[in-house]
């Protein structure tokens, strides 16, 4: 699972008001090279929750993202490269996602988070 997906995911358990961002418990992280597309990154920049991305990247062992970002930084190639690496190339292979409110664990197995809810959580 890429951090792009992590940045979109939130906890869906009934009664949770703010299930975002999910805390990452990383047991195994993979890096898979992906094609860099500047236009896509520029579009995604406005949708990504920056703080969540920085925190997520840190918990995956990548801490070269600036703490805060502005749209003007999209001009910098260096910034785009880092953004791309964090968003598209870091994969959470094994571990878990933890709801910040309830502490509910969603296990991640072979890169696939199990977001299935129990019957009493719907």
């Amino acid at each position, binding site marked *: 699972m890429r951090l792009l997906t992590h940045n979109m995911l939130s906890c*869906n358990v009934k009664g949770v008001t703010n*299930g975002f961002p999910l805390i990452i418990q990383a047991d195994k992280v993979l890096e898979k090279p992906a094609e860099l597309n500047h236009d896509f990154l520029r579009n995604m920049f406005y949708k990504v929750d920056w703080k969540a991305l920085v925190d997520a990247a840190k918990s995956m062992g990548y801490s070269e993202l600036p703490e805060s970002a502005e749209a003007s930084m999209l001009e910098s190639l260096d910034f785009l490269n880092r953004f791309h690496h964090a968003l598209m190339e870091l994969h959470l292979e094994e571990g878990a996602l933890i709801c910040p409110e309830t502490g509910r664990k969603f296990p991640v197995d072979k890169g*696939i988070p199990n977001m299935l*809810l129990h019957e009493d959580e*719907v």
Partner: protein
Amino acid sequence: MASRPELLAPPEIFYDDTEARKYTSSSRIIDIQSKLSERALELLALPDDGIPRLLLDIGCGSGLSGETLSENGHVWIGLDISQSMLNVALEREVEGDLLLGDMGQGLGLRSGVLDGAISISAVQWLCNADKSSHEPRLRLKAFFGSLYRCLARGARAVFQVYPENIAQRELILSSAMRAGFAGGVVVDYPHSSKSRKEYLVLTCGPPSLSTSVPNGKGEDGENSTDESSGDEENQTVSISDRHRPRKKQKVNKKGKGREWVMKKKEQMRKKGNVVPPDSKYTARKRKSRF
């Protein structure tokens, strides 16, 4: 279509390891799936500027539909309930991210992040109650409600569906409309029982020019765009939009009245049922304090 898998078992059980492999190794299914997803992508009508979009593939299975999205350069996230199908997708090294989840439980995604969503032959599964806790109406509501939230304003969602009957189609459509979507059904090849395909084209946000429903494909594979041709037989688009008049309520405020009650009581007596005797209180309205 000889059999309907959704009548046999719940999706997470029906698509076990053998079925998942069978599904993905059949070249016929692969061909159909990729054609369906290509058409769905076309109906999604994303702006043609070469910028990759973030799409959601609901019921992605082994990633056959996702492959079409990747080929067109888009970034996608796939959701499926069957672990076996996702395992096959992993083996096939699909480019999108995969999630194990149940669409009937609602999508756990942030609001307004998706540029579009497609779903190939999946939504009709929601019409089945596979567990005692399942209520199709509520599951459809949860699904469409959460999808509406995650889509960006003006974004589209295209679902290829195989509704079992008219009631199912109505159920799916009305749930979508209730969630706030505008749009309708596009039917490709309406006169062929085999290649007939239905697509639900939904737009997020208020109705505008972009929410008009595109035309379906005719028998010859061409768009039948000319409405004024007078060829009513070949009209391929059936539109049911959210602004259609609601069914008028028959009962007026007064209720049925004494006459009607007396008639019914008489009928019941003739049948031999025990019916309370008529009195001055028969069919009288209760006082408001009740």
